[in-house]
């Protein structure tokens, strides 16, 4: 009698663990797919970030800024006469 109880408990336990294995394997596959997706996204973002860095540095070329400042915005370094030093 006792043996029968023990056996059935063990049987249920084995069944349970089998289901758990299946479940965790499934879960790990799902996570792996997710991980791959995220890695792809990271790659994409890395690439975009690099491109934006390059774009920014192209726009921020000093020669370019200088030209725009002096021609389009008509900016200039204040002349000697228009500088006043104020000391508190």
């Amino acid at each position, binding site marked *: 009698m006792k043996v029968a109880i023990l056996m059935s408990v063990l049987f249920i336990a084995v069944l349970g663990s089998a289901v758990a294995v299946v479940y965790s394997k499934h879960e790990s596959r799902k996570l792996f797919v997710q991980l791959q997706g995220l890695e792809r996204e990271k*790659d994409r973002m890395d690439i975009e970030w690099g491109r934006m860095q390059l774009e920014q*540095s192209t726009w*921020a070329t000093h020669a370019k800024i200088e030209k725009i400042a002096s021609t389009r915005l008509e900016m200039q370094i204040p002349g000697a006469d228009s500088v006043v030093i*104020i*000391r508190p």
Partner: protein
Amino acid sequence: MKKEQTIPVYNQRRLFLLLLFVVAIALLMWRALDLQVINRDFLKNQGEARYLRVVKIPAHRGMIMDRHGDALAISTPVESVWVNPVDLVGQPDVLPRLAKILNIKLDQLKQVLASRMNKEFVYLKRRVNPDIAKKVLDLQAEGVFTQREFRRYYPAGEVAAHVIGFTNIDDKGQEGVELAYNDWLRGSSGKKRVIKDRLGRIVGDVENIKASRSGRDLYLSIDRRIQYLAYRELKKAVKYHRARSGSAVLLDVNTGEILAVVNQPSYNPNNRRGLSSSRYRNRAVTDVFEPGSTMKPFTIATALESKKYTPSTIINTAPGRMKVGRNTIHDHSNYGKIDVTHVITKSSNVGASKISLSLDAEKIWGLFTRVGFGTATASGFPGESSGLLSHYSRWHDIERATLSYGYGLSVTPLQLAHAYSVIAANGISRPVSFIRQDSPVKGERAISAKVTRQLRKMMKTVVSAEGTGLKASVHGYQVAGKTGTIHKSTSGGYADDRYIAVFAGMAPASNPRLVLVVMINEPRGDDYYGGLVAAPVFSKVMSGALRLMDVPPDNLPVIQTKLNGRGGRS
């Protein structure tokens, strides 16, 4: 029904069959044992070898930035396309499309594949843009793969090329800061074990063997804006004077940081094809020249420290030349009796020689050494030259005289800038650095503070109507400096028609913040004097740098105002 029917007994057959079964079972068991126990490891390995692969996780190399965090070197991800020739040749329809996407000639592609048939890994094209790599993968061709790599890109281009240097195709530093700080910048690539399918696609991660570590970012002391300004002005001057080369170094006096180092000729680090390595040299650090008259302040410093001289001690330089042994030292013209200050103002070789000959050689050598001549600076830059300063025990009178006005020793522009920064920093010598310093930098005393103040006052007279370096003046600031026009030494003496024009100086002279050395090698135009060739560059770069560094002017009329401190808006 016949009850008695004789059932034949085939005992022999039965036994035979049974035996056969037993043997079969024994064989099966033996085979099972053989596979599962005896050859288990071998078979397992063989199995895994067919689907498990160790792949590299590439690591990102650290960025190089200027002192404000503007990028000077960036690694961007790119893909390298590689193929397995054996797999690829079986798909003749793929080749033309592949060649077109990668912009390779079809014949060439076929030839490459044919010649590498015995290999399993052949790069078709390294470092292509990610979108091109995607097109390649979209072909769904068998035996075509991409591999992630990083390409180094230098947004500042030729402006900062010499400082930063470059990396080779395997992302290893080859020159400049990229080489000097390779270990810091370099990431270490990781490894992981994955499961791949027949087409080489990764279908499962098994384990991480080693995590990849990205390289660390590096903040240089360079200021990109000033660097650009210096580069532009130097390039303009070198071109205008048709000079062979040129260098400029700008130092922050308070920290010894190098704010800008520029050289001509330069190169574009993003496209180095067909360039000779002489262009890669950071001349300001690796090339030496005789400093000429820019050495005089250090001779005078020794004189003032000896207490034998004051700035107003009179020296007779008439008749503008002087014989030392078998050699004659010339001045530009006969200055007659002048005081020590005017030896600097007028740049009198005779005056400097006379002073030097009256001093202790050991003292002169000691001061020169303390300000850093003859030893490499602490910059740690690859290929840095230490210059040359012979020991005083080997000096004869003629050496002592010529050294006083900067012949017979050689220095790099960086060394000269460092030596001038000692005068600027009230006699404190701080190590120069290409790396941004975030905490105060300790230094050692090399010259007494009083002497450096006197020197700066003398050097201010150089940048005046009376002196040789008026063109170095900066509006709104007092400038102290010294010109130098050096006859280039050639084999068999000094050339009459080949010069080096130098200006070394600091501003604002009342409390120096920046030191700048401009050196232009072999100007071939009409002008060759340091005061005419190098000083204008100094003026332009210094005025821009002072503005960019927010250094308050010390030579403008000041309006005294009382600001209301209690929330009053001005």
